[in-house]
C-alpha cells in the first residue's frame, strides 16, 4: 500500500547531482510530492535534498539503496509520513536564513 515517506539525502554538491537523484526516482515511477534542496551552510561542496514521496515501503527501501549507489551520495535515510518533511525542510530553511 502506498503512503507518504520523507527521504533525506546527504551528498556532495556537484553539478547534476539533483538530476541524478531525481532520475532514480523517475525511473521507478515514484511520485515526488515535494522537494527541497540546499547547500550546507558551512560547506557549499556538500548538500542535502529532502523529498516527500508517495510510494510503498518495499519501493522506498529499494530506492534508498539505489540512491546510495550514486557516487556523490553519502547516505540516504527515510521516515514514514510527511511530518518530518515539514520539520526537516523548515530546519534547513532556518539554517540558511
Amino acid at each position, binding site marked *: 500500500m502506498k503512503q507518504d515517506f520523507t527521504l533525506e539525502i546527504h*551528498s*556532495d554538491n556537484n*553539478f547534476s547531482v539533483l*538530476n541524478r537523484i531525481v532520475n532514480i526516482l523517475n525511473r521507478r515511477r515514484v511520485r515526488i510530492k515535494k522537494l527541497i534542496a540546499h547547500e550546507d551552510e558551512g560547506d557549499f561542496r556538500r548538500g542535502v535534498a529532502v523529498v516527500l514521496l508517495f510510494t510503498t515501503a518495499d519501493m522506498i527501501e*529499494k530506492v534508498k*539503496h539505489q540512491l*546510495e*549507489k550514486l*557516487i556523490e551520495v*553519502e547516505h540516504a535515510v527515510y521516515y514514514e509520513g510527511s511530518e518530518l518533511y515539514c520539520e526537516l525542510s523548515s530546519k534547513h530553511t532556518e539554517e540558511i536564513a
Partner: protein
Amino acid sequence: MDVLLTKSKPTVDTEKSSNQPTNQISGSEVLLRCLVEEGVDTIFGYPGGAIMPVYDALYHYADKLTHILVRHEQGAIHAAQGFARVTGKAGVVFATSGPGATNLVTGLADALIDSTPVVCITGQVFAHLLGTDAFQETDVVNTTIPVTKWNIQVTEAKDIANAVAKAFYIANSGRPGPVLVDITKNAQNEMIAEADYHKCESIRTYKPTPVLQLSQVEAAAQLINNAKRPYILAGQGILLSGATEELKAFSEKTGIPVACTLLGLGGFPSDHPNYVGYLGMHGNYGPNLNTNECDVLIAIGMRFDDRVTGNVSKYAKQAKIIHIEIDKAEINKIVKTEVAVNADAKEALQILLEKCSKNRHQAWIDSFTRLNNIEYEKVIVKEFNPTGELTMGEVINHLSNFTKGEAIVITDVGQHQMVTSRYYKYKNPRTNVTSGGAGTMGFALPAAIGAKLGVPDKEVLAVIGDGGYQMTVQELGTIMQYQIPVKIVVLNNNFLGMVRQWQQLFHGKRYSFTEMQNPDFVKLAEAYGIPARKVEAREDLQGAIKEMLASKTPYFLEVVVGKEDNVFPMVPAGAGVSDVLLEEPKD
C-alpha cells in the same frame, strides 16, 4: 600483428620540442600522462573537432599509447568492453563531442548493466559555448547519467588529473562500470604547471567494498551445513572478484553442484564433476528444473535477472536463498533472501570455506545428470548429428572440440549466442565475452577486436549472426588496418533468428520483418583484405574450421545454417523455470 606491435606512426619521442616553458603542459598532455600513470596502453577512438587538441598531443605519445582508429564510436566502446572483459583492466575510449559522444550511449548502457569497467573521454565545445547549441554540442553529462556509473564535465585544465584519477578508481572498484569524462576544448588547450599524478584511493561518499559481516557468513554456513539439496548459482561476480579458485574449493569441500549464468560461464570449469550446466531461458534442463527442487540456493555474484528466473512468482519458492553480492541494491531486489551476505565474492567464499563442513551430495548431483541426459537425448543428439542442413550446434561443437574449450569466444546476440553458451565448453575465466543484460546486437565484432588486443597470444573467435554482423560490419576496416587476427564465424540463416523463433512459437508464425536479404559476405570480407570462405555442406565444415584456426591472419568463415531452426530448451516468456520446454509445443 606486426604492424600493431611496432606501434603506429609517428614514432616520436615523448620529450617533444615545444615553444612553451618546460614546466608548463597542456590539459591534453595532462590527460595523456594520467592515462599512462593509470597503466593504459591501448585506446580505442575516433577523432573530431572537439577532441583535436588531445589527438594532437597523442601524436607525440605513440611509444606509450597505442591508439586504434575504429570506424564508428560504438565500435570503439564495444572494443574497449572486449578489452576490459578479457584483461580485467578498464578499456579506454576517445570520442569527440556531439554525435561522437552520443554514439557511445549504447555501449555505455551495455557496460553498465554488465558491470564492465570502461573510461570514456569525450571532447566538448569551449566552455563559454556550453548551452548555446554550438556546433556538435550536446549535453553529454545529462545524456549519459542514466547509463554510466559516474560522469563529470571538466572545464579547466587544473581539474583534469583529479577527474581522470576518480574515473579510473570508480570504474575499477566495487561493482565495476563505465565512466565518462567530458573535457571542454579550452581545458584541453589550457597550459598549466606540471605536477605529479596521484591515483585516487578513496572518495568520501563512495564505499565500493562492503565490510563483510561475519554473522551473515555464519548464518549462511549454518544453512549450507544443514542443507539436503544445496545448489550454487555462479554469476559474473565470481569472475570480477577473481574467485574462481575459491568457488572450486568451496564446491569440492561441500559437494555442492554449480550452475553458471550467461556471464558467469567460465567461472567454474565445465569439465568439473560438480558442474551441472548453464542456467536461464535457454539453459540446460537440469539446472533449470532443479532450481525448484533445491532446499538451499546459494547465489554468488549474480542478480536474478529475468532471463534466469523466468516468472519470479514461480521461482525457487521452496528454497532458502543465500545471496552473496557486493552490490547491496541487488539484494532483495528481485527475490527475497533468507541470508544476505553483502560482500565481495572472494572474501565471502574464503570465510565460508572455513565455516562449512565437508560433505557430499552425490545423489543430488546425479539428479542433474539424469535430467541433462534427457536433454541430451531429446535435443543435443539431433543438434550435433543432424541429417539435413548444418546446425548452429554442430558448428559450435566442432569449434569447442578443436580449441579444447580454451579460446576466447565473443558472441553477438541471438540464437547463435544461446547455442554457443550451451555448447562451447568453457574451462577458463574471462574467456566468454557476450552482451548479457542489454543484449546489444553488433557487440561481437568490435569486442573481438578489443579482446584480441588485450590478450594477443590467445585464440579469439567471434561467433555472430547475420543480423548482428551487419550492425557493426564497418569494423572490418579496423581489423584490416591493424591486421588483427580475429577469427570471425557468421552463422547465416538469413533471418533475425531469435525474433523469428518467438514469432513462430508465440505469434502464429507471422514472420514480421525478420527475413534478411544479405550481401555476399565472403566478397565483403575480401574487399577488406580478409581471407574468407563460405561453407554450406557438412563435409566441408571441419576442414574449413581447421583452416580458419590455422590462419595467422584475420579470417572470415560464413556457415549457412538451417533457416528455421529453433533453440531448445526454452523457458517461455511468463513461464517458470519448471515449465522449460525441450521441444516445440505440439499445439
